[in-house]
């Protein structure tokens, strides 16, 4: 009886594996083949090992099933008396050993390929934060404009709390994806600003821990343009499930155009930081930034989750001296979960979110904080 159930299970598994390709994505059963040589090699190796173990399973479970069917007392089976055989033991030590060697050979080859350290055409530094990714494109010299940005979950809190319908890429969308060129060897240098995270994109077969204080490297050559999604794979605190990765792979020319645009935008932001912002703009942009950065702890209604995450609504820090609000946002609150946003957000974004917390949730200070003021605050170190 039991082994019948098991047999069914085995059958179900193998048939499902065959069907997997034709089924809806929601019933995806197997690892993606991916879009890199590495990911295809990994998939091939995965299937090789899988069929090996299926074959061993058929032999072992088959022998068991046969015994269970034929050697039962109810069928009048009389027990045999044999109970040892050194020969047999040696045989079933050596056969698995030989199979393992056959598995180890391709595994060694694929692993050695993964450790290829021969140069790269583009280097990108990936820094894990609680709970966002920072991507910095490394420059060849100091005169180049630096492209560096944070990538944050863009799924709305309403979707997560089931207040509205979930979008197609629920929990797998970010405000600003990493952009890389196709057919180019890109080297990723990974580190972390706080705890250990892991950067994982299944289609690239890349999963690497980002470790505070240390730097890890891996590389990729993406062959097909497209949008590839992944997630943080190492438990990194409360919002571990909410820090997705999105990579746009563009053909090299399009990538170059995008990169030039980003450099220009970075230069513009520095200029814009001196411009004036209207109250409406500030509140609108501020709300968006709040919802991406602050809502996890301080909540959508600004009430926080005391005592660990204090309320913003009615807080002295938000309604008192604006310098205190600025200090809190720019420098964080040491010893608490409140991070320093001085480097994570640009002065425009900081001014907007400061304005927002000073005017939302019934904090009616009426203050409008300008990017110039924030910029000056940061520069002076006040």
């Amino acid at each position, binding site marked *: 009886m*039991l082994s019948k159930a098991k047999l069914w299970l085995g059958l179900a598994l193998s048939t*499902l594996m065959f069907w997997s390709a034709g089924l809806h994505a929601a*019933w995806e059963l197997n690892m993606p083949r991916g879009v890199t040589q590495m990911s295809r090699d990994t998939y091939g190796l995965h299937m090789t090992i899988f069929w090996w173990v299926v074959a061993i*399973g058929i032999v072992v479970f088959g022998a068991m099933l046969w015994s269970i069917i034929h050697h039962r007392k109810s069928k009048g089976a009389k027990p045999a008396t044999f109970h040892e055989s050194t020969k047999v033991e040696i045989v079933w030590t050596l056969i698995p050993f030989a199979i393992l060697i056959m598995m180890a050979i391709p595994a060694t080859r694929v692993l050695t390929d993964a450790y290829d350290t021969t140069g790269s055409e583009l280097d990108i530094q990936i820094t894990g934060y609680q709970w966002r990714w920072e991507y910095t494109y490394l420059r060849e010299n100091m005169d180049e404009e630096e492209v560096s940005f944070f990538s944050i979950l863009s799924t709305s809190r309403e979707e997560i709390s089931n207040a509205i319908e*979930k979008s197609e890429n629920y929990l*797998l969308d970010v405000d600003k994806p990493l952009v890389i060129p196709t057919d180019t060897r890109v080297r990723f240098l990974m580190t972390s600003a706080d705890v250990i995270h892991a950067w994982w994109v299944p289609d690239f077969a*890349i999963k690497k821990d980002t470790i505070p204080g240390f730097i890890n490297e891996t590389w990729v050559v993406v062959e097909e343009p497209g949008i590839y999604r992944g*997630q943080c794979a190492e438990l990194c605190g409360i919002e571990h*499930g909410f820090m997705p990765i999105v990579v746009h792979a563009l053909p090299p020319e399009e990538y170059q155009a995008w990169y030039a645009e980003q450099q220009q935008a970075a230069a513009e932001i520095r200029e814009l930081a001196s411009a004036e912002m209207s109250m409406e703009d500030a509140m609108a942009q501020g709300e968006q930034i709040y919802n991406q950065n602050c809502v996890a702890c301080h909540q959508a209604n600004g009430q926080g989750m005391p005592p660990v995450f204090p309320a913003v609504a009615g807080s002295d820090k938000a309604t008192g001296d604006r310098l205190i609000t600025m200090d809190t946002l720019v420098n964080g609150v040491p010893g608490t979960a409140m991070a320093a946003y001085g480097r994570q957000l640009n002065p425009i974004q900081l001014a907007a979110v400061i304005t927002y917390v000073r005017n939302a949730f019934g904090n009616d200070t009426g203050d409008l904080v300008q990017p110039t003021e924030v910029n000056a605050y940061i520069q002076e170190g006040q």
Partner: protein
Amino acid sequence: MSAAHDHHHGPAKGISRWLFTTNHKDIGSMYLWFSFAMFLLGGTFALVIRAELFQPGLQFVEPNFFNQMTTMHGLIMVFGAVMPAFVGLANWMIPLMIGAPDMALPRMNNWSFWILPFAFAMMVSTLFMEGGGPNFGWTFYAPLSTTYGPPSTTFFIFAVHILGASSIMGAINVIATILNMRAPGMTLMKMPLFVWTWLITAYLLIAVMPVLAGVVTMMLFDIHFGTAFFDAAGGGDPVLFQHLFWFFGHPEVYIMILPAFGIISAIIPTFARKRLFGYDSMVYATASIAFLSFIVWAHHMFTVGMPLAGQLFFMYATMLIAVPTGVKVFNWVATMFRGSMTFETPMLFAIAFVVLFTIGGFTGVMLAITPVDFQYHDTYFVVAHFHYVLVPGAVFSIMAATYYWLPKWTGYMYDETLGKLHFWLSFIGVNILFFPQHFLGLAGMPRRIPDYALQFADFNWISSVGGFLFGFSQLILLFVIIKCVRGGKKATAQVWEGAQGLEWTVPSPAPYHTFETPPDPTLIKAQ
């Protein structure tokens, strides 16, 4: 002479019997009841997890509480349910199996049990503290558990110290009992395999529990005394934590499975009515697995960025474990082959163990392959793998043992119909629960997340349904045990037709004191 005097002592009356007892059977029972309580508590936490994961979106719990649930579920099942259950079985059965009157160190035995409830009371109480309980996973990687841990982490550390001390004392007791208390004629190579596997397990415990104590001590120093063992800011290394943790953690995995091998090696021959095939090779295989467990720890850390040579070493060493484990499985199958089998509940659990543990072993081989592990690591594929070896593996073996020896403990036969019902519901439930998790992991779902993308929705609800089926089925076990303790069909001393070994030579229920005079050496046969 003193033995004759002891004969007149029955158990003391009331609560003091349990508080001050030094009797191996009483202590064994307490361990088993405690572990069952922890099993239900840890299971409840698991059901909170499965309820939250039934559908995408956050329904029942906050992410922070979810993380506390995954952490506590792991800690309680490993240290509160599985390990104490095996210690309980060791207490009850080792003296009976080797013809000893009691454990070698009865007072320490009492102590090692009674500090456990305090350790777990302390650990569970952290859930009600400000900032919540441990939320960093049962592996408590630094710096998430140190610099970024909740204030209650200190209590967690002390709880780990206490339960570690309990395990160490239990292990010392088992070793002393096996080495010093065997009846005349009970040579090492005549010992039942359960005794052998426990002897090796006890040595593993002595080797690695102190390392765990060392790790949490370093955490304590990092948190409170300004050291920087694991803090990069002070020149420490977070990866060092993982090396130390898994140096403990991998042998720990075998601590939870070796005694299970012993149980299965007792049950299959009984119900196949045929001697265990390859006793000697079983002993050597167990010892080989124990040895290998010390040189494979870094396979839990293939993504931390080790040099190629290190990755290759740990890959090859890990793959080697398949050889002695395979020998065990083949021996069990060979024992069944040309036997005369019947399928009472213990045998059903034992057969399910062999099949499902082997499936867990297969995914273990897949996980050992480093480049593919980059894809599997920290996904539900890993969750499915280790639950296959721990639930239908370790836990099923404990259930098999419970049904197998329950008549010897209580003097009554359990309700076979309910036992079979419990088995089939557990068997179906556990597969619905964990099998789809393989697919989730391969499709890309990370572990330890409270919410997931839509493509993972279908297998998650199936898994949750299986989880509730499996969880509630365990109440049948509770009922069967209580019913059996209260009465039923009288059990004979032999209980099972094909059972071999000294424990079946004493009456059922086993008297409060057994083997005060050593058993007749002619009763001791080769296994």
